[in-house]
């Protein structure tokens, strides 16, 4: 194994009582084809894989079920409530997802705006409370607002998932300070969800000390999704290792790396 000492020393990554080896979670949307998707997921090393709940195509002209490709015994399927704009809809989708029978985890999204896909935090809190009461392990997709994150934790969420930047934007981590603050103040795992565009974004995000990252478009919409999935795997490991290692202090002036003594006259 080439796993670094730092990663061996790492604390386990546990959400809702389940422990995972990989801190990278990936989505299954927007891939050019299923074969590319499966090879990319393999290359990412992810164990947690997100899926969406949608109507079956009654004409059966196209086979849209993702389970024909993803083995639920091999991957931990995390259903989302993507596309829901009210707490009522999100709760409905979560219940349907649980009935599919894989687990009681849900990635809760309540979207508040079509253009930015930013979360409706009021609806999110409302839905989170209902689902927690019904025994769901709620992973709540939220913005990078500390107060909302604290309220989601109080509501009993298993993890809080602040965004790096808007879903599918690829703009990277826009507000490292807020994400760091959320991580410092919360006890439940903090997993950054959405906005990562390339490997450096993933690395910088993990360097903030967050517990993991969930991404979809950054891999699926890359020129070569399989190669990008591998890059993301390495970036998440590198960022985590750098966080554990502890970076040097920032200085506003230079400090020579070579001795100033012993110079020739």
């Amino acid at each position, binding site marked *: 194994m080439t796993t670094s000492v730092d990663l061996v020393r790492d604390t386990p990554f546990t959400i809702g009582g389940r422990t995972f080896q990989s801190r990278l979670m990936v989505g299954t949307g927007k891939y050019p084809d299923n074969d590319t998707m499966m090879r990319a997921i393999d290359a990412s090393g992810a164990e947690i894989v997100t899926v969406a709940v*949608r109507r*079956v195509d009654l004409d059966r002209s196209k086979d849209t079920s993702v389970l024909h490709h993803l083995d639920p015994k091999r991957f931990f399927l995390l259903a989302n409530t993507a596309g829901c704009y009210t707490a009522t809809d999100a709760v409905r989708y979560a219940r349907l997802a649980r*009935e599919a029978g894989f687990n009681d985890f849900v990635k809760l999204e309540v979207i508040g705006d079509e253009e930015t896909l930013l979360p409706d935090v009021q609806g999110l809190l409302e839905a989170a409370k209902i689902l927690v009461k019904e025994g769901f392990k709620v992973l709540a997709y939220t913005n990078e607002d500390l107060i909302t994150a604290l309220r989601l934790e109080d509501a009993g969420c298993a993890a809080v998932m602040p965004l790096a930047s808007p879903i*599918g934007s690829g703009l990277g981590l826009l507000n490292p300070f807020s994400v760091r603050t959320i991580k410092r103040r919360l006890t439940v795992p903090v997993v950054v969800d959405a906005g990562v565009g390339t490997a450096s974004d993933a690395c910088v995000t993990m360097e903030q000390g967050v517990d993991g990252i969930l991404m*979809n478009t950054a891999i699926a919409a890359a020129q070569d999704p399989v190669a990008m999935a591998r890059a993301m795997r390495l970036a998440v490991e590198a960022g985590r290792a750098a966080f554990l290692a502890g970076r040097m202090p920032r200085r506003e002036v230079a400090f020579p790396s070579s001795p100033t003594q012993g110079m020739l006259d």
Partner: protein
Amino acid sequence: MKATIDIVINGEPRSVAPAVTLLDLLTELGLDPRAVVVEHNRHIVRRPSLGEVRVAPGDAIELVHFVGGG
């Protein structure tokens, strides 16, 4: 007496035989009951009960499954 009743499946109007069960509906549509979740008038019907619940005129049925998503 009308030979069929009108219901709505996944938002589409459909005519089906009266008092058909949800399990019959799935079979008719060529769907594996283990691969779909059934919502009948906004209530989830668990797999073991699919053969017991009969549809009535005007019923709304949703058949869902997992697709790719982030």
